[in-house]
């Protein structure tokens, strides 16, 4: 290899010392590894514990971190003894209903609110803002009574309905539609397109990022929700996965931690897959400033 080629490669591939002084780098990486252990450690430990056989201790003085003899036995047991499929199915139904309704109705409402030429949009806006002022926990008693009056106690529809379409998503979509340049719309109008065509072929594709944010946020909040399903659902057959998991813990199954760990791993997988596929939209969802703790 000629020296010129080596030089070129050097220029393209940054060397370690380009990143800073060695001592500073070492400190940075040590800190990164420490935080890695603290954040991912507990979840990783959960995964490892779920792979242990019955002969191995999950915790206590004799427990090791790595399973000696990895086995999927705990996964088989959890599926055999607990209606995990039914839990997953119920969670997926709620997720599918929520994502669909949120998506359809936040785009339609967001679109109309981004258009100036109709009377009453201010009133609509005020109602939407007002609905965001009340934390869910401060209206859940009355929400439950409404759901009861609708005859939806212990039904998945009752879990879904209050999250039918959220004002925050309408606002997100409105913002995305407002960002579409007026000139493009004018040009499309001159071409004789109908408003529906412009909505479908101009506005929706332009707002792709915001749509993904709505989908991801709705998916995660519906999949992870706990308090509201806990209030609405009563029978085992209707329980969502988070409810089922929390019950695993308090029931006699709780003694086999491997099984509960397996259940937890199962519940994390769909969100993790979604995260890997849609990573960059995930971060945008955070920047959109939704309330989260």
């Amino acid at each position, binding site marked *: 290899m000629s020296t010129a080629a080596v030089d070129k490669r050097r220029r393209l591939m940054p060397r370690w010392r380009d990143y800073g002084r060695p001592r500073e780098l070492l400190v940075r990486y040590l800190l990164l590894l420490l935080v890695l252990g603290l*954040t991912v450690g*507990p*979840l990783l430990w*959960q995964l490892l514990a779920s792979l242990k056989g019955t002969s191995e201790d*999950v*915790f*206590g003085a004799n427990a090791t971190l790595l399973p000696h003899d990895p086995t999927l036995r705990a996964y088989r047991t959890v599926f055999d003894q607990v209606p995990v499929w039914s839990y997953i199915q119920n969670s997926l139904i709620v997720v599918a209903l929520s994502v669909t309704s949120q998506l359809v*109705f936040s785009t*339609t*409402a967001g679109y109309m*609110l981004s*258009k100036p*030429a*109709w009377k009453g*949009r201010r009133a*609509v806006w005020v109602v*939407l803002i007002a*609905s965001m002022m*009340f*934390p869910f*926990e*401060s*209206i*859940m*008693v*009355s*929400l*439950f*009574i*409404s759901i009861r009056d609708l005859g939806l106690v212990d039904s998945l529809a009752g879990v879904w*309905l*209050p999250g039918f*379409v959220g*004002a925050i998503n*309408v606002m997100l979509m409105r913002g995305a539609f407002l960002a579409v340049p*007026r000139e493009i719309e004018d040009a499309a109008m001159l071409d*004789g*397109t*109908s*408003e*529906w065509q412009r909505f479908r072929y101009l506005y929706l594709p332009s707002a792709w990022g915001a749509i993904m944010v709505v989908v991801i946020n709705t998916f995660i909040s519906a999949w*992870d929700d*706990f*308090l509201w399903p806990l*209030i609405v659902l009563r029978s085992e057959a209707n329980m969502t996965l*988070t409810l089922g*998991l*929390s019950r695993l*813990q*308090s029931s006699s199954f709780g003694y086999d931690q491997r099984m509960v*760990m397996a259940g*937890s791993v199962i519940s*994390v997988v769909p969100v*993790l897959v979604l*995260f890997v596929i849609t990573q960059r939209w995930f*971060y945008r969802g*955070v*920047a959109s400033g939704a309330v*989260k*703790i």
Partner: protein
Amino acid sequence: MTAQITNPVSGAEALTSTPGPAPSPPPSRLRRLARAALPGPAPGANGAAMYRRWWLPWLWTAPAVVCAVVFGVFPFLNTVLLSFTNAKPLGGAASFVGLDNYTRMLQDDDFWLATRNSILYAVIVVPLMVLLPLMLAVLVEKNLPGIGFFRSAFYTPVLASSVVVGLSWQWLLADDGLVNTWLEKAHLIKSAIPFLSDSWLILLSAMGLTLWKGLGWYMVFYLAALGNVPKELHEAAQMDGAGAVRRFFHITVPGVRTAMMLVGTLTGIGSLRVFTEIYMLGSSTGGPGGADRTLPFYIRDVGLDPITGNAGYGSAVSVALFALTLGLTLLAQRLTKEDES
């Protein structure tokens, strides 16, 4: 508006008969109805679409408005109304009891305990949640080899539901759990620390759980804000010999002040909403004798229990929770304004 529009369907049919942009074969009745419900072409003054069918925007916004009214505004008004009654969560006769629920609330030790827990939660969690993710964001801001992996990894706790995270922590903190075992092996403690049976330790553990789960979320939030802090300032300060700590407090912190105020407000409101962490670590009773219950937990206990619940009393506590949230929001707004001026 003419009378034909009072019935949307007949009005729509009348209006679709006006000439469209392109001549097409006479549509079926169903298609005509479907088309009537979609916005049509009608460029108005200065490019804004004028709607031939006045009710169209209403139709398109109706689901959102209905949802906001039925599951947002109405439940709140109803909560206020209910708080003056003795309604039962599962139905039955309810009667007006005046201010009884509120006087009962003011004398209820458990209510004050829950309020104290909620406020304590905010007081401890908010400053940490404002600072720790910022420090983490500074740590992962620099583009080093493998930094993308670390950023994603730090985000994973956000993805796990509170229930899963709670389960995991339950076993980390159990008497024979990982934390106690390691501390005993390191001879730092003689007997297990009762993380999950002492009411104070349960509350602190739950706060730790909230922080741990929120770190990644607010780290990403801060990463966006950090992009706006000029790099030149850091370089100049470094030239002048300012260390990392001084640069953090004198350049980074002032640079992301607005973001910090926002994070403070969001986490403050979030702290008042804590439920699952307490449920998972303090069991379904909310700690020994309910000592760790937060306001949402207490609302669920007193207002929604199928047998002993009193929706009227639960509503009164809900109004208190709302007032607390509102007070916090106003306080945060005021602080932000003062900070800006």
